[in-house]
């Protein structure tokens, strides 16, 4: 089992969701986050004084999948989130020790 985390543009969430669920992924968790990567922030002027917007709003998507689903899901996220402009985000894949369905107590890949 793997956990796939992706930081994407808020505007691409719908695209990513449609492609990922289209692959048969049944669950996904998103959070609204702020951060910066190589894109960095930008400078604005307010009433004549400059200020920098360092932390840009992003969406953090978290998906748990079985081993064989990792590549298709990663591809789907890339397809859905890519605009080609700096600031498209990142995908992190890590291994997952255990998954437990709270309602039934079921464990392992079946609980995903």
């Amino acid at each position: 089992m793997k956990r796939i985390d992706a930081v994407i543009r808020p505007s691409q969430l719908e695209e990513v969701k449609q492609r990922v669920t289209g692959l048969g992924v049944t669950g996904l968790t998103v959070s609204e986050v702020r951060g910066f990567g190589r894109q960095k922030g930008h400078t604005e002027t307010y009433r004549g004084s400059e200020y920098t917007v360092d932390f840009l709003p992003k969406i953090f998507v978290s998906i748990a999948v079985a081993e064989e689903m990792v590549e298709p899901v990663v591809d789907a996220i890339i397809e859905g989130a890519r605009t080609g402009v700096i600031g498209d985000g990142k995908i992190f894949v890590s291994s997952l020790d255990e998954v437990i369905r709270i309602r039934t107590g079921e464990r392992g890949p079946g609980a995903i």
Partner: protein
Amino acid sequence: MPSAYVGRRRKWILTAIVALVFAQIFVGSLSVAFADQLPQPDPAGTATGDRTLVFDAAGNPFVVPEPTDRSAPDYTKSKQEFDNFQAQAAREPLALKLADDVGHVRLATNFSWTLLTGYLVLFMQAGFALLTCGLVRKKNAAHLMMLNFAAYVFAFLAYYAVGYAFQFGAVAINAAPTNLGGTPTLNHFLIGSGQWGFLGGKGFFLTGPGYDAGSNCLTLFEVVFMETAGYIIVGAICERITFWAFLICELFIGGLLYPISGCWVWGGGWMSQLGSTMHLGHGYVDFAGSTVVHAVGGFCAMALAVILGPRLGKYGPDGKPRAFPASNIVFVVTGTFVLLFGWMGFNPGSTLGATDLRISVVAVNTNLSAVAGSAAAMVLWYFLFGKPDITMACNGMLAGLVAITAPCAFVSPTSSAVIGVLAGILVCLGVLFNERVLKIDDPCGAISVHGYCGWFGAVSLGIFADGTYGAGWNGVGVASYLGRAGQGVTGLIHGDFSQFWMQLGGATLLAAYSFGATFIVFKGVNAWRSMRVSKEVELTGLDVPEFGMLAYPEDAVEMLTAGSQAQQRGV
């Protein structure tokens, strides 16, 4: 907070309330002493408005007065007119009775107008609250709303107790509001007399001479004007002042600062009479309060902002100003429109009567200057910084409104547009000047909008007034002015230099008075006990430390991070 401190403060507030109640009882019994004096107040309004208050459109009275000066050149003609009127009146008693009714209805029309426009001005407080709340950081939003709210409450009480009497206690002597029946009971200067009055002296606690239908119509209209001055300071001192210090500021403005200078200009005081006494135009003229209300409020705010110092992190170690962006632009724009709407009461209402048909010109001039000011600020900012700043566009509209407030009745629509453009430019330069050169931290631009543009508005009257309105203003030029009958208040470009010098000197004096008096008083208060919250309170936001609740509890984390980087680097 140590409980002994809280206890001390409670005791202090209690003492103040008890003193207020005793003062009220004392003054109330004094009013009995006034009761046998003439003229009698008319609390029921049943004796206000008769044939003596009937005028035609040009302002000629229905009742022809008996000429008293036998040496006057037109004595024979006046006497003839008087005799004719008397003869006609004797033949037609019903006409006289009808004229009494007309006089009453005339006053009723003017009362309605004055009260309704007063309610519009009252609603400006909501506009100010929205505007300023939108401009500050979320972590101080509840504190700011409470300042706006408490300003109305406490300044009102101070004005009721002494402010109204100081400002209008002698209005009937030189500046009787005939549109409201003349308020004849307000006829005593506490300091000064005749044309050199410095402080009114009747109507304390609105008892006795102040308990009168005509006078109370004036009270309602004037108290909301005073509240506007009281509100202005919030924009410059917010995000760092303690609540107790703010309450003292409001009592000071409502009870002393505003009424004193208000008496000089609107209460028939010495500045308004300089036309008669020193031959300076029509005396100091400020139609609806560019200086009386706005510059006084704006320069008071400036003194307080200087005493308080800038917000933590506003200036970096290199002295460069940093931005604390507005938290809610929707509030800022909505608030500005509410203010524009309220201004339709502020300026046209200042005729104190709908029977003065100049109100339509005043309304158009006010609106025109507002849009011109906003346009100028938008375009100028576009050129200077590449993007029009929404908050500066709103400041530009207010700048146009503040500037046209003094001249709105005396200038043409075209002049109004010009005044608006100049004010829109001035407010932008003023904001940059305060922020970069003087390094006075003014979160909402109150000093530039109300102080600088208020001063400019009164001066612009001395430049653009075209003489079409205001014949006999402040008792000057009733028969003729500048050699022309019916010539009203006239500015520099229409041939009256003395009016320009009067406006320039008067506006500057009022600005200096407001700044100086506030600075001296509150430098003392600040030395006694710091008016500013502690550093910790300022960093976490004033909402919880001062009032125990957040304006936006759902955004607790987000609101504390806004501007935090700048603060860490700066402190």
